[in-house]
């Protein structure tokens, strides 16, 4: 692996980690809200969250690019706050990745939250637990599997993104060049040796992660069958 590829590897890891952490912070309350609300706005929020599943990443990337430009309010605000434009930076990648991986984090978690036994939460309330306490002391541990699946999928999906990164990251080595793009570069320049290494790493990583996720589900099915 060349030093540039190694840098791309670390950037990919950093991007996926930061994105996953941000998703845990904002995606968890969103999943909780979606799982429990009967509010009318849900019929709009739910498809918005799911959009990245069906949209070509380039479409999202295109709109982000426009949004990040200093001529637009978001880009302008960023420029005035940080003194540098937002587009083609690592921060831009994080914002794009968070939106792009949002459904992969929110949906498994929402399913887990929806499967919670309401009477257990009611019982906790009668034992003196306030709503936030009930969430952390009951909903979180009982949805442990949902959290693990959501975190794995969000992380893996961020590692695997390409189109949106290309649009808003600009392929700057050491700043925004991630593995999937480094791979594309190697293929473009007919460097198949390097391409093989990266492709192999990504393939094995994804396979191991998915095997882990599916093994969680299998354990769970066997347990319910016994019960």
């Amino acid at each position, binding site marked *: 692996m060349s030093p540039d590829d190694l840098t791309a590897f670390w950037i990919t890891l950093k991007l996926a980690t930061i994105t996953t952490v941000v998703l845990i912070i904002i995606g968890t309350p969103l999943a909780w809200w979606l799982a429990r609300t009967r509010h009318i706005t849900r019929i709009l929020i739910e498809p918005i969250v799911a959009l990245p599943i069906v949209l070509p990443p380039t479409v999202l990337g295109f709109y982000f690019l426009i949004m990040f430009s200093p001529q637009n309010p978001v880009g302008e605000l960023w420029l005035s706050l940080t003194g540098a434009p937002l587009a083609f930076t690592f921060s831009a990648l994080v914002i794009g990745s968070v939106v792009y991986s949002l459904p992969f984090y929110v949906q498994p978690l929402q399913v887990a939250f929806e499967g919670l*036994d309401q*009477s*257990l939460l*009611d*019982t*906790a*309330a*009668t*034992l*003196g*637990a*306030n*709503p936030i*306490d009930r969430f952390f*002391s*009951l909903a979180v*541990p*009982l949805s*442990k599997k949902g959290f693990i699946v959501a975190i794995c999928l969000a992380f893996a999906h961020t590692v695997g993104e390409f189109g949106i990164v290309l649009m808003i990251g600009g392929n700057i080595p050491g700043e925004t060049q991630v593995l999937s793009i480094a791979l594309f570069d190697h293929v473009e320049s007919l460097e198949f040796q390097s391409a093989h290494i990266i492709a192999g790493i990504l393939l094995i990583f994804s396979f191991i992660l998915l095997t882990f996720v599916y093994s969680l589900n299998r354990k769970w099915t066997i347990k319910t069958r016994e019960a």
Partner: protein
Amino acid sequence: MDYIKASLDVERSDFHLNLELSIFKGEITGLYGPSGSGKSSLLRLIAGVKSQSPQDRVDISTNEEIWSSADHFIQTHLRSIAYVFQEAQLFPHLNVRGNLEYAIQRKRNKTDVDLNQVKQWLNIDGLLNKSTDDLSGGEKQRVCIARALLSGAQAMLMDEPLGALDHRARYRILPYIDQIHKRLDFPFLYVSHAIDELTYLTDKIHVMDKGRITESGSTLIMGPKLGIDSLDASAIITCDVDHYNEKYQLTCLNFESQKIYIAGNKSMGESLKLNIPARDVSIAKSLPQDSSILNILKGSVVAIHESKEGSSELVQVQVGNQTILSRITRLSIDKLNIEIGLAVYVQIKSVSLISEYGN
């Protein structure tokens, strides 16, 4: 807390709850009714775990504070209420001790109840380190009751807590619940459609039907009345242990100065509660001389409860200060000319022991 008062008018597509109910300390208030009569909804509204809509009228207050009114709502976790559901709601990610500690950590009031006492009252000492999966139905429910008591509650709501258990397990837990009531003097509402449970535990019974309270009265009167159409109508009596007859392996009990024999040596306790099914009790006008039945008691008829359907009626016979129920046919009643005030002998074919507290 001295009392809880509820006045409700809640209408949904499938039911209409419209009633007033007061639960006072010092007694167990029973709530009886068929499933779908709104009993659980009532309890859930009192506890504040049922969602309310603006057009509902839900006035709930205690002598200390208002829990719910037109412009006021106190959330469940701030109401000092213990709630035991029909299905034992133990937290599956915690073991028994963890479940109890969950309540202790969130205790709302300084009460005298501590873990050591509750462990002893409900006989759960040996269960503390077990996983909730390893408990029997009855053990689960005892842990649920213990947990509810440890939360610093000032009132108790029980929604058919023994509904999921078999006959034997039910009779094993009833004395524990009775014991708790005796030790903790707070408002206590017990919901059940099992008349024997209500007869055993409660002092007062409200009958609910289609969201309304249709009848109320003391358990002494309401118990037999409700039992008429129930096949398992039974009397629950309290006896003192007299002695154990080793030769015949029978325990002789003293019941209102008369004798009752039960099988086996039950002489370890001082007083026992027995369940006598009405269908196992017959009536004679004179003392049967050559009967194989051991338990024959003298009493007088205080009430004849007519059943709406079927050929049998329920005769309530007073023996001392307690009553025994007998289900006999209308034909026998006419033949023997049974009427209120008549002195009769009741022959008891079977009794079952409701296990003593601690056993």
